[in-house]
């Protein structure tokens, strides 16, 4: 069943956020499904922001991803 637009938007937001701030390599996402690496990066981001570490794009995680913030990555490269 095709992924609903909203779901896809969330994935796109997370993909962009994790690439920009958590060093996730580009071009990993399969069609409409979060990769294992993405789950791992979500866990990294949740741990950094002291959110509940689920590896999933829950509401609290998305809420933080939508906040105005600094452009420097959270994981120092």
């Amino acid at each position, binding site marked *: 069943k095709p992924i609903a637009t909203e779901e896809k938007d969330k994935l796109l937001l997370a993909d962009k956020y994790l690439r920009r701030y958590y060093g996730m390599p580009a071009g990993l996402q399969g069609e409409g499904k979060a990769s294992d690496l993405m789950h791992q990066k979500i866990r990294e981001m949740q741990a950094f922001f002291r959110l509940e570490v689920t590896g999933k794009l829950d509401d609290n995680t998305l809420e933080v991803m939508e906040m*105005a913030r*600094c452009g420097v990555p959270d994981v*120092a490269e």
Partner: protein
Amino acid sequence: YNHFPRDLKWKNTNVTFRILNYTPDLKKADVDKAVRNAFNVWSKVTPLRFKKLYEGNADIMISFGAKEHGDFNPFDGPEGLLAHAYPPGNGIGGDTHFDEDETWTKDFHAFNLFLVAAHEFGHALGMAHSSDPGSLMYPVYSYGKGYPLSEDDIKGIQSLYGENTDHRKVKPKPDAPSKCDPELSFDAITELRGETIIFKDRFYWRLHPQMPEPEQTLIKNTWPELPNQVDAAYENPEKDIVIIFSGIRMWALNGYNLVDGYPKYIHKLGLPKTVRKIDAAVNIRDTGKTLLFVDEEYWSYDEEKGTMDSGYPRSLEQDFPGIGDEVDAVAYHYGYLYFYHDHMQFEYSYSSRKVMRIMRANSMLNC
């Protein structure tokens, strides 16, 4: 706090900066002042000294630009990404860029240029992001008055450059309280539409039945109008409002919105003028009474009548034996009062009038 890899920093403490262009959102003088004040934040606690250049190449080159602005690290239009800066080093090292698509301000409206500049200059001096939600180097924007560095920030920058040799006094913000600190005490506790809100310093934890992990947030991030310190709080489920007390003022919240007409003075409840602070408050859902605790005494307020009950204040110790003579916070669940004092929590049976259990205050934070 975190540093960049290899603890990148400037080799000497005299650092130069230059402002290449200006945002039209503010007067040039306001931008100059915001930038100077932002550097002063760091020079107050270190030997670092910042010299402004008007031409040539400075260590920290400051500019405003939108979208792709010359460093292949594009901005993203309004909101979202506000600014970025590069770690100390030659060339682009130290350079700081602000997203011109944002609205830059000099007051509490988003986004305050001084605060964002102080954060970005932290990067330009060698600080990476901190995961302490109360620190200036926390990646998410939040507005706060007063000296912006927290103890966490100061430890970080001083471990790179040392302390300020002429010892000018600063009043840093305390670090965010740790929920599993064995000595943790609460400022206030209340329900809010099925969630439990616990106030401590400038923060609150939010406990939700489906969220095993409490979420810590700055009070002002959710309720900008509230003060940084809450003394007491309770929910009146009938009216669907939460009353917040701080000093001699009280606010009413309807969910996450402030009810018009507040803040009001606590004396409107019928408390004597000698009362300057309420330690704890709790609504007993079954009786419709709200108990207000002040030092060793407490009052009973009838929510329906909107008046204080006669025969108060009464002695806390006499009416609730076993919990001591002062409380920090009180909650009521299914016939049990939970008194919090220092790092202890007393479960008190309202019907049988005795203490049933004694636990650590933060046992409800999964600690």
